[in-house]
């Protein structure tokens, strides 16, 4: 518990340093999210499948991109990529486990409020969605998407460990990632014959309790797994 307390205290410095900007970003995100979600009823009616990709982008990637540039991953000397705060804290008497937890707290603050805002707005903006979902299935739907956030989104928090990566290799990895997402998405559409969000609505409607249980397990496993990955990566990295 002391580790989490110290991590929260350290995270507080970074969060306080750009508090006003973060609030402005939340307002900006709300407006963008609101405009985007007005097309949700079209998605429900016509399986407008680009919506899924845009939703994932807004849900997973956007919050991390909102983080002030000064606190984001940067190219240092040579091929070293790192988040400056990770290097700073390693030069101080802060255990690696605390560094990892402080980065996870920061990522949570830049993710969960934005993501919850998007999921609440979905309910507000879309009459079609309101009609098809009960309070219990909505809870399941939110839990499923929070599990997606932890399982996928916290890979970004873990990547803050940094390391030495050749630019060519990074570019290749990005291309493979985009191709991988495209293939997964095409296969999903083909197999499920519906979009990802629609499919998760179905899960939440048909098996709400099971969905909540499995999602909570995914959240627990993902939260711990990505922390272990980050700690190992910090230990492996050469911050030279």
């Amino acid at each position, binding site marked *: 518990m002391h580790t989490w307390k110290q991590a929260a205290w350290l995270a507080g410095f*970074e969060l306080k340093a750009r508090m006003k900007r973060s609030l402005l970003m939340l307002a900006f995100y709300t407006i963008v999210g609101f405009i985007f979600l007005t097309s949700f009823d079209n998605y429900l009616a016509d399986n407008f499948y680009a919506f899924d990709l845009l939703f994932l982008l807004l849900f997973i990637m956007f919050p991390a991109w909102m983080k002030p540039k000064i606190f984001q991953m940067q190219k240092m000397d040579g091929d070293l990529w790192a988040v*400056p*705060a990770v290097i700073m804290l*390693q*030069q101080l008497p802060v255990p690696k486990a605390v560094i990892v937890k402080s980065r996870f707290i920061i990522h949570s603050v830049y993710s969960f409020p934005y993501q919850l805002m998007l999921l609440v707005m979905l309910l507000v903006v879309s009459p079609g969605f309101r009609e098809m979902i009960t309070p219990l299935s909505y809870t399941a739907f939110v839990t499923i998407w929070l599990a997606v956030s932890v399982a996928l989104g916290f890979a970004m928090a873990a990547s803050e460990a940094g390391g030495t990566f050749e630019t060519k290799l990074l570019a290749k990895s990005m291309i493979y990632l985009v191709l991988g997402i495209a293939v997964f998405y095409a296969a999903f559409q083909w197999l499920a014959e519906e979009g990802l969000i629609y499919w998760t609505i179905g899960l939440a409607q048909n098996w709400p309790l099971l969905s909540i249980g499995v999602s909570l397990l995914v959240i627990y496993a993902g939260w711990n797994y990505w922390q272990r990955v980050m700690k190992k990566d910090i230990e492996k990295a050469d*911050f030279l």
Partner: protein
Amino acid sequence: MPSWIEINALQKNMDDFQLGPISLTIEPGTITGLVGNNGSGKSTLLKLVMNLANADAGTIEVFGETVAGKDESWKQKLAFQPQKIIGWDAYTGTTLKEMISSLYGEWDEALFEQMVRLFDIPLDKRFGKMSQGMQQKLSLALALPRNTEVLILDEPTAFLDIPSKRHFMDLLIDWMDAKERAVIITSHQTDDLRKLADYLFVMRDGKAIGHFEKEALLESYRRYWLDGVPGDSVPGEVSRDRQQLVSEDPAAAEHYFAVQNITVIDHAALDLEEIIDLLLK
């Protein structure tokens, strides 16, 4: 008394550079200057001591603990001021002080305030908005008051003006006198090393040239002006320019001159800069 830092056969391979093997011990109550040309591996060595990178071979122990081990408590005993400070830009001096002071049990608030006054540091300004000189002053004001057993300073005076450099030297000497401590300092300023260092660890292209006691090193080199040019090599001869000769073994050289009937017109000690220059050639 056991060494506080013990580096044994340390090696680190990078793309186009190999550090080591390096062996070095740091004793309490000493100031060790790391000296070397640009790219000799001084900063890399310090970062390895701080466990910011993994060694390929060899070990580093700080107060008996392996730095790469699970126990990270040794970090409480070391304060590190890197050459390039990363991660401070978004914070004001006040915020940085609040963060750093809380992490060190022996934080000396009075010394911090004294340094802020002496260097006239604007604590309400963001670190990233400060000039390089002011950034260096603030980082020093946040290093010394940590009161750790070991202080590691990588080029601490590179951007300081002359009065600030003098103030810092005085503060560092007082700081060393107050308690048993050790300092490792890298510097290209021979004045700093002459005033501060007890030992010099000289490096060239990643390799250790030697670990010298500074006074002994200064006494071990001598320049002679001779009335004739000796035909053979003089003991300890490291350079020769017409009738001027430098030896790193003055006793043997003077014996040789006496035996060979060579008159020494004049002789003088070399200054530290000249000696380092010779060592790094």
